[in-house]
């Protein structure tokens, strides 16, 4: 598996980023949806801290991923794929990139505006984006965090559905070249 993407397939780094971030987002969403319903105990505080630490990790990975992707070319789309589908797929990818950037940023923003601590895995202090308590932007940032998350969920249904459709109906190698195909 080449490091860089080629005309026929994705490079190993693109795949590593894609799947590690996908798994982390799945874990992160599960934690996020569970933790907000917990009663106030130290366990809740720790789970919140975990959510924030994983979220900042995702943000860092997404930034690295985008930086790397900007130096890459993408493999050719399947021959005979209608133009509108190519455009829709590429547009959706762009929006997905925007969301996986904006969701952790909005979480970080909400946390900053709440004046809540953020210590990455108990290791170092992540600075505040708002320089302290900001009761005006706090509810807006939270609304953004929640809304963008659900927008992502909806778009992922389309994204995963399209991948499966390519694989099982079109029988092309769109999914395979993101997974294991050399």
């Amino acid at each position, binding site marked *: 598996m080449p490091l860089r993407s080629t005309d026929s397939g994705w490079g190993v780094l693109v795949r590593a980023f894609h799947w590690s971030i996908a798994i982390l987002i799945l874990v992160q969403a599960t934690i996020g949806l569970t933790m907000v319903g917990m009663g*106030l*105990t*130290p366990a809740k*505080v720790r789970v919140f*801290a975990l959510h924030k630490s994983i979220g900042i990790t995702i943000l860092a990975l997404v930034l690295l991923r985008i930086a790397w992707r900007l130096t890459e070319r993408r493999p050719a789309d399947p021959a005979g794929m209608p133009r509108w589908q190519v455009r829709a797929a590429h547009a959706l990818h762009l929006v997905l990139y925007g969301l996986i950037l904006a969701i952790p940023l909005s979480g970080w923003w909400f946390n900053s505006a*709440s*004046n*809540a*601590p953020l*210590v990455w895995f*108990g290791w170092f*202090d992540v600075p505040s984006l708002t320089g*302290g*308590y900001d*009761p005006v932007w706090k509810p807006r940032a939270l609304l953004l965090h929640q809304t963008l998350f659900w927008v992502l969920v909806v778009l992922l249904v389309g994204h995963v559905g399209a991948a499966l459709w390519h694989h099982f109906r079109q029988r092309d190698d769109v999914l395979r070249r993101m997974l294991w195909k050399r």
Partner: protein
Amino acid sequence: MTTKTSSTFLAVMLIALVAAPAWAQPWQVDAARSTLTFTNTYQTVTYTGQFRRFNAKIEYDPADLAHARFDVEVDIASLDTENSERDHAALGTAFFDAARFPQAHFVTTAFRKAANGEVLADGTLTLRGISKPVTLTVKFVQKGGDATLDVTAQLRRLDFGIGTGEWADPSMIGDAVTVQGHLLLEPARAPGVQPAASARSG
């Protein structure tokens, strides 16, 4: 009235006058410009909070520490750490339990001078129904007729049962709390009496 009774009366009055506590200078606190803050750590990150409402009775003359007296009542519900979730939790039963203990009270028992010249005020703090001795360091600066009073104390929240049990872990909430009072004082005056000119200067 016989001479006998009148002289007894005079003696009693004299004794009463001498024995009556000579009040140290009473001050009036400028509440709008005075603060009662504290620092503590939450998830190892230092934060500052304050009690926005408190009532301090200050009698203090640096030249007469024997008659100095601080008596402070703090409205617990006025807690503000600039984090509404944290404030809400802090007032709950696991922490300050403001519904049952709406006030904290500090009153001095004695003032003394430390070896380094610092003034120390020993007193009793009653917080969440628990009374413990607490010592303040006192910095009093007079400027014109007014004065500023800065006091600092080190407390342990667990001494007062604030967040015990599952919340005792100091890596979650630090045990040590530094309390700082910054008071702006004006000479207290009886109602209707015009302030002395000196009280307004400077």
